């Protein structure tokens, strides 16, 4: 069954078709489409604007087919799954498709954006429309060549067949003719049940190159005459450069130049992702990385405590960055103090004050988490070559659109003079949404008058990061004499942002509900980190729900399902931003797949958790053992509802990785500060999860439905923290309120 796409796509369509030299067809479709749904964009702080969208297919006369993948790739495997969307509707054999990364080109490609688990969701109709248009044009060309009606022709595996006469030819045969046709006005998409490729497990198209160590990454980029640059920065947050003497350093072998750069101008209007840890740094430029690393040690720099400063936003909102050398112990004390005062009310249902006053029993618990460093395995880097009034980048960057206006503002050149080749990123997790390093590389290339690859050492990356904020949440639950939950209170704050999602579960399920927030200004730079805020909320909330279900004498899954049933049948308030049915669906699936409550699992130390974020639902059950301070995770069972799964192989890999990443961060992850200096500098002091600490087995199950795809990269990450805390309680009899958990286990 075929169905027409949303008419607003075709109405606004502006499709372009071009003949390829050599007799092929290149299809570029450009149209204005509403970047819906707008709620997710609001969460990402993007204006819900109309976007120009384009994408490309190339079909050569020898029937070779190339599909460009528009979005930057950082391991979420969109280089496989996005072209699959096009190939499905184009009706070609996946094996004949060659995939190529598209470079940054907002006029040619749709939404070159990696973040917020939105890649597949936003491309779902757009890229299938591209494929379908291509197929329809090839069909029309074949129909004209054969003088047969289109209705008698069928397509499969890049072939067009006329069943009655037995005629069959490749797409390539008609590509040149198709290139001369007008593009179709009405684009027709397949019904889900007609999919041949979507929903089948396909291997990462880049896997063979990765297994051979091919130079795919920004770190691997080089060209003739290229110099290496690194930057020296203050040893602590809250400090700035006063003066420096590079006389000795400049005499070191291989050193070309040493000079200071200012990342943003004094009057810069800061956009949301212009965060950088230090605005003035010392650039060291030399012939090899080793030369530059050695010269850095010889720089005699004088650093001083920076004064309070104001930063003006593009929205004319002024932010005050405080002066001072901050410490984690003080942050924790500040958050505890703030939690005792009234916060900013984010949501209120019923009369929570009265309910708490009349309660027969109240449980109050406070959860705290440290900053986390991204620890992308490929350290921050970028190639830049500034020539005349043009600059060429080869950059690992999640969202080029977000840094472009700032590059333009800083360099004072038009955006047409800036080109960005997008390279595979060795991890991102939010870190590479902040493109200040591109500006740094361009400034260094300009000053050094040479092509330059700027690289951060691991120590630079850990100690001058853009961290997951340090957070705190205090929950209170009120019960009547029958241990019925009558009121719920969440007060969340952080350094320097609150984690609170006031309209998420259990809001909507409890009559009397209060959510408050607070913030503590800081000069520690923070930003997006896989499932921002959710990655802490889930840990705190799901641990608290576990503890109150125990007080109520209820099974933790039954308790959650009862709350969700209430939210489904008779929701409190109108602004709940989750679907209770889908939430229940993942809990029921994880219950069934893990054998929750089954007699054969009675001896297992297991914890459950579920969470909603990035439009998707995830639930996990963890089975573990604790011996001394060693935790062995025997089994993780994950249930996910992210709508239609495009590539089950890649999706499972992502969910498995989220479990391991989450367990590692829950047990070990912490970035702490003493007088502005990070206590962790490298992987010898920042503990990452390792092979012997990974779960012995992970099973991933997807809810099967026909819902258009929702997020996948982030949703399975947050709940794992809660499942760990709850399983650890079962194993040790101790509740875990402070992340990371492992240091609290006694050997």
């Amino acid at each position, binding site marked *: 069954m075929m169905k027409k796409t949303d008419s607003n796509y075709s109405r606004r369509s502006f499709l372009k078709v071009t003949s390829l030299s050599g007799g092929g067809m290149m299809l570029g479709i450009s149209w204005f489409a509403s970047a819906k749904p707008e709620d997710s964009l609001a969460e990402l702080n993007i204006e819900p604007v109309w976007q120009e969208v384009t994408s490309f297919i190339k079909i050569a006369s020898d029937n070779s087919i190339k599909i460009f993948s528009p979005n930057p790739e950082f391991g*979420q495997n969109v280089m496989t799954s996005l072209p699959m969307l096009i190939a499905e509707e184009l009706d070609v054999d996946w094996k004949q498709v060659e995939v190529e990364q598209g470079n940054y080109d907002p006029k040619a490609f749709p939404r070159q954006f990696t973040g917020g688990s939105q890649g597949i969701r936003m491309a779902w109709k757009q890229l299938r429309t591209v494929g379908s248009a291509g197929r329809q044009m090839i069909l029309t060309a074949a129909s004209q060549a054969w003088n047969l009606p289109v209705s008698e022709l069928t397509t499969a595996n890049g072939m067009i067949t006329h069943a009655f006469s037995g005629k069959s030819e490749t797409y390539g045969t008609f590509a040149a003719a198709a290139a001369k046709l007008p593009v179709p006005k009405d684009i027709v998409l397949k019904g889900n049940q007609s999919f041949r490729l979507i929903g089948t497990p396909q291997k990462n198209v*880049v896997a063979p190159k990765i*297994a*051979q*160590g091919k130079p795919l990454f920004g*770190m691997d980029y080089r060209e003739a005459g290229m110099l290496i640059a690194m930057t020296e920065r203050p040893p602590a947050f809250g400090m700035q450069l006063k003066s420096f003497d590079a006389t000795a350093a400049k005499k070191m072998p291989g050193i070309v130049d040493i000079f200071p750069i200012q990342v943003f101008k004094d009057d810069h209007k800061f956009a949301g992702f212009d965060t950088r840890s230090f605005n003035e740094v010392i650039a060291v430029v030399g012939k090899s990385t*080793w030369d530059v690393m050695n010269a850095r040690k010889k720089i005699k720099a004088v650093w001083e405590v920076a004064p309070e400063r104001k930063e003006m936003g593009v929205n004319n909102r002024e932010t005050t960055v405080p002066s001072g050398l901050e410490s984690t112990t003080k942050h924790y004390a500040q958050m505890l103090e703030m939690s005792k005062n009234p916060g900013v009310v984010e949501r209120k249902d019923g009369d929570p004050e009265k309910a708490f006053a009349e309660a027969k029993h109240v449980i109050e618990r406070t959860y705290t988490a440290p900053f986390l460093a991204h620890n992308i395995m490929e350290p921050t880097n970028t190639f830049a070559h500034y020539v005349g009034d043009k600059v060429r980048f080869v950059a690992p960057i999640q969202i080029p659109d977000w840094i472009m206006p700032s590059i333009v503002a800083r360099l004072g050149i038009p955006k047409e003079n800036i080109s960005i080749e997008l390279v595979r990123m060795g991890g991102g997790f939010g870190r590479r949404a902040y493109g200040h390093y591109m500006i740094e590389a361009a400034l260094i290339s300009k000053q050094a008058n040479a092509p330059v690859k700027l690289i951060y050492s691991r120590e630079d990356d850990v100690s001058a990061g853009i961290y997951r904020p340090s957070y705190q949440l205090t929950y209170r639950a009120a019960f009547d004499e029958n241990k019925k939950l009558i009121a719920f209170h969440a007060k969340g704050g952080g350094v320097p942002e609150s984690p609170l999602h006031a309209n998420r579960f259990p809001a909507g399920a409890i009559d009397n509900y209060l959510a408050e927030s607070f913030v503590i200004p800081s000069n520690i730079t923070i930003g997006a980190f896989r499932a921002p805020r959710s990655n802490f909320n889930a840990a705190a909330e799901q641990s608290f729900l576990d503890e109150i279900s125990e007080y109520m004498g209820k099974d933790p899954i039954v308790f959650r399902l009862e709350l969700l049933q209430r939210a489904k049948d008779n929701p409190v308030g109108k602004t709940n931003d989750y679907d209770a049915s889908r939430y229940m669906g993942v809990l029921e699936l994880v219950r069934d797949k893990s054998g929750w409550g089954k007699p054969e699992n009675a001896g297992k130390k297991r914890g459950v958790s579920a969470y909603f974020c990035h439009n998707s639902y995830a639930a996990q059950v963890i089975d573990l053992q604790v011996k001394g301070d060693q935790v062995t995770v025997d089994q993780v069972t994950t249930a996910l509802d992210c709508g239609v799964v495009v590539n089950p192989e890649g999706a499972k890999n992502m969910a498995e990785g989220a479990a391991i990443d989450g367990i590692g961060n829950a047990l070990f992850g912490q970035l702490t500060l003493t007088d502005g200096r990070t206590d962790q500098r490298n992987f010898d002091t920042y503990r990452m999860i390792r092979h012997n600490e990974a779960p012995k*087995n992970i099973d991933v199950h997807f809810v099967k439905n026909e819902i258009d795809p929702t997020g996948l990269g982030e949703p399975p990450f947050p709940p794992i923290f809660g499942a760990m805390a709850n399983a650890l309680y079962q194993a040790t009899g101790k509740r875990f309120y402070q992340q990371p958990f492992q240091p609290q286990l006694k050997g």
Partner: protein
Amino acid sequence: MIKKYSVKINKKVHQVEADENMPLLWVLRDILGMEGTKYGCGVGSCGACTVHLNGDAVRSCQLPISALAGTEITTIEGLSAKGDHPVQKAWVDVDVAQCGYCQSGQIMSAAALLKNTPNPTEEDIENFMTGNICRCGTYTRIKKAIQLAASK
């Protein structure tokens, strides 16, 4: 001090002029242009730069060029001619990689493990591979790939 060195990498002898303390990692990447060996930490804590020294897995960021006389180095580029070493094939079959940055080092460690322990237990794999970090969290797939390679 800059000196001349002769290093045998992937069965080929290279003449290199470099600072005596320059780690093999940067000799490979910056001088010889062999970028399959990745920089991850520079302190021997992450395994991204793993190569074989006389057949054993070592961290190339910890090996000064002055210590390489008379040794044979194998990098990911020399593990197989066409990416068809059993470990590389298993990595593709199991679809191990996410971002892929650490995988050169993981593969080099796994190949060294299987050379000395052709039929490793799960515990052997976990212990041997513990020096290689993957932030994406592909450890369970890495274990499956090593078991697959061992079974061939």
